[in-house]
């Protein structure tokens, strides 16, 4: 299967690989996927509590090139966004940006889930209620 240039670029030069302090109050962590399924994504955001802006984002991903590229792209998009805007990131935007083929759509869904997971983790840590999301269907 041929990968798009953008997938190859993110795979070869992934943006924002790393780990933020998950015990820190202003860091939210989303861990999605499962080793048995061949994809595990961990996405973390650091939030400026006074402005609600995402100041930093990091990821680590176990998975195929498309999964790595989806999470790398997600961290790029998250940086500098408000939490509210981050919630609007849709998996199909990732699919479009990376030209993912149909069998790889689940990678983008995973990235969207990881974003939501990170945001909810941050919200709960800071005394807010977790947002209830509809179950993702494509897996």
């Amino acid at each position, binding site marked *: 299967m041929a990968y798009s240039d953008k997938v190859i670029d993110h795979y070869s030069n992934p943006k924002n690989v790393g780990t933020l302090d998950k015990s820190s109050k202003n860091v939210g962590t989303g861990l999605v996927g499962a080793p048995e399924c061949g994809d595990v*994504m*961990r996405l973390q955001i650091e939030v400026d509590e006074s402005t609600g802006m995402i100041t930093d984002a990091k990821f680590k991903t176990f998975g195929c*090139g498309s*999964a790595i590229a989806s999470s790398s792209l997600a961290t790029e998009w998250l940086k500098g966004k408000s939490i509210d805007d981050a919630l609007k990131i849709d998996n199909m935007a990732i699919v479009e940006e990376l030209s993912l083929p149909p*069998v790889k759509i689940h990678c983008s869904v995973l990235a969207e889930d990881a974003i939501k997971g990170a945001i909810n983790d941050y919200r709960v840590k800071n005394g807010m209620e977790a947002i209830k999301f509809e179950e993702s269907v494509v897996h």
Partner: protein
Amino acid sequence: MLNLPIYLDNNATTQMDKRVFDAMTPYFLDHFGNAASRNHPFGWQAEEAVDYARGQVAKLIGADPKEIIFTSGATEADNLAIKGVYEMYSSKGNHIITATTEHKAVLDTCKHIEKIGGEVTYLQVDKEGLIDLKELEAAIKPSTILIAIMYANNEIGTIQPVKEISAIARKNGVLFFTDATQAVGKVPVDVNKDGIDLMAFTAHKMYGPKGVGALYVRRKNPRVKVTAQMDGGGHERGMRSGTLNVPGIVGFGKACELCMQEMESDTQRISKMRDHLEKELLKLEEAYVNGSREHRLPHVANISFKHVEGEGLLMGFNKNIALSSGSACTSASLEPSYVLKALGLGDDLAHSSLRFGLGRFTTDEQIEYTIKAISETVLKLREMSPLWEMYKEGIDLNTIEWAAH
């Protein structure tokens, strides 16, 4: 000079040997006759070439030329053996014994047999990929007509105890069929010493052309017959109709002859490279060989690199190195290799596997390049892997409740 890309997927197919190609070329344009044309020189020439090739093929496996039925490949030979025996011996019984790690061409044929009223027992394998001979013997019943166990596995290279299996078959009056697609031409296979009644193999796995294979069908002690699955002109002693693929068969014969002459030196060279590759890659932490290392084809290595996903790993170098992975992320199913799972490997390790298939044209230089490229990619991806980080922190991954996906 190292030419890229490097081909290390010789279990999928092999590069044709130039000498095979040279042997074939006259049979496309000049000697184009139909081997079944009995009344003119064009036919005679084709027939002579086929006879000669049949001898070359038979010799490699210690058979009589009359016992070779040419087919379009190993898949057809697998089908002909299993369906053909099932039909031919239906008055004796309807039970077939096979194993869970067989190639799909055998497993799916067995599924078909079940659909049409047959009964199939699928033997489990141990963590090395070997069947249990006691289980095999216990599975035999009065209605058993066939044992179908592969010679060597395509994903892990594990070689089954063929002689012991055939002894059990013989003792119980059951026919023994083996899919020897990966073994013939790579390790010494002798249908008499090994006690084989039927055997499928193919040219393109041994530096011959695609589209031609054979089914060996024993003629003596016992005389075995299969019901034809392709009806027509009654070629190949009535067991496989269809105009013979003369250039393909000539190439198959030449490929067999070369294997006969060069197997020993090829094996020595190739297994040395394989062992070196394996030794170097196992220097990486948490790298494991899948399947038996003792009973194994000399050119195969299947290795899992824990906490790195196979397809992601391949992407690190697949422009330059051709390899297969047990991770099936590329297929629609997302299910990892059923062979690796049958060994008892967790899905995570199955997803993390690479299959190396070396061959006649593999060089030391290619192996050095491969060791370096794979080691670098594994290290890079582990830096990116949350599982690796957890493992390094001493977290037991089995205690984590993973989100359902």
